[in-house]
């Protein structure tokens, strides 16, 4: 059970959250202008890194807000969480 620091509510158990996949993938403003290839990358292609991953979570059974987290997928340690719209924070290695 991960313990996730919600930017609004503080540390809460994983069971209050839902995972939202890779963060910072903005929906194109004019999808119809995109090629199939470009739309495919937006829709499906993911970094899936082994290491630091900026990802979306929603505190769905808490404050219900979406937010972003930087998690190390090798250890599951959460290095930072931040609100939607904020840039991914610099974290020294």
């Amino acid at each position: 059970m991960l313990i996730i620091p919600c930017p609004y509510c503080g540390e809460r158990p994983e069971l209050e959250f839902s995972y939202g996949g890779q963060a910072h993938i903005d929906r194109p403003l004019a999808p119809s202008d995109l090629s199939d290839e470009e739309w495919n990358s937006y829709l499906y292609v993911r970094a899936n890194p082994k290491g630091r991953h900026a990802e979306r979570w929603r505190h769905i059974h808490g404050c219900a807000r979406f937010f972003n987290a930087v998690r190390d997928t090798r250890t599951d340690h959460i290095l930072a969480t931040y609100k939607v719209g904020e840039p991914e924070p610099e974290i020294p290695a």
Partner: protein
Amino acid sequence: MQRFSAFSLFRQGLDRQKGWKNQWRKPDPKPAYDAIVVGGGGHGLGAAYYLAKVHGIRNVAVLEKGWIGGGNTGRNTTIIRSNYLFDESAALYDHALKMWEGLSQELNYNVMFSQRGVMMLAHNIHDIQVFKRHIHANRVNGVDNEWLTAEEAKDFCPPLNIDPNVRYPVLGAALQRRGGTARHDAVAWGYARAADALGVDIIENCEVTGIRRDAAGAVSGVETTRGFIASQRVGVSAAGHSSVVLDMAHVRLPLESYPLQALVSEPVKPIFPCVVMSNTIHAYMSQSDKGELVIGAGTDAYTSYTQRGGLHIATETLAAICELFPQFRRMRMLRNWGGIVDVTPDRSPIIAKTPVKGLYVNCGWGTGGFKATPGAAHLFAHTMARDEPHPINAPFTIERFRDGYLIDEAAAAAVAH
């Protein structure tokens, strides 16, 4: 290759089993190979075997960063079945199932393939509709799959609780009698031994750290922890780590890697005759030849490479198991572990060429990789040898996501209205 048989075992017995040799050599990597397979699991070792056996390409290396069979091959719950809905999937998995039926003899290694039957439980009307759709589709495709009433299901699996007054009563089941289980380690070792005998180099503790490409952009070899190894044909069969390896060639795929947990009970005398799966309450179970109840749990909700997961997955799975089989409530969990499964958006695999010439990939098996081992290996070898897919894996391309030709087994099992 030292032939395995009851006789050789007896003869060796007279000499206290002293005469057995390495089941596969421990070669140092050569400077170059005609083909390299990255990943020493069942899929990778099998691909190397079929490259040598079927396509005569024997100058092949399998590069494994740890010990062979140490990934999902050695961590899965070994369920084998082929009763998939869509024509493409049914063809793929039944191709594998047919190969399983002769694999021990093919490899001269007892992989303990056991056709005990795989029974999938229906708990609501929607399940019944979905399973019957599968059964009808399978019949048209020549894949065995039959409907059982709750009573017939209990006859087939006596520990099953069919009391109608439980939260999720058993309303019936779809049974594939040809389905079953196999001994996962033996699959890796059997392929390794057979491939080795055909000249394939199996190189353990050799991690790929880079993929080198020539001026034209084609693959020219791989950097490894044991130096550069040249090859114009590289097949990636790295399961949960596929994204990591392909990223070395700047190939990005629609993949995400999730922890998948499994657990076993203490060994008991035979009590559970088949494989039972319940997708509705997320649990599946069989009993191994050793006597352990082997239980598959769900994937954790987030991507991870930790090969473990949370306690809540085991508790939810066992709650489901204890409802289906209340007599096992006093049984005890002996081991709980996790693997890493790579999942595509339509939960079907990719066995295909990549945009990079000479680079091939077999990935995206999600929770279904083990059952496909011989088939996937055979088709991947074909794709690598001919530089074009076999008709069976032709639909399982990377481009299907761009074009929308998804093969979405999970979606087809839809959610009830």
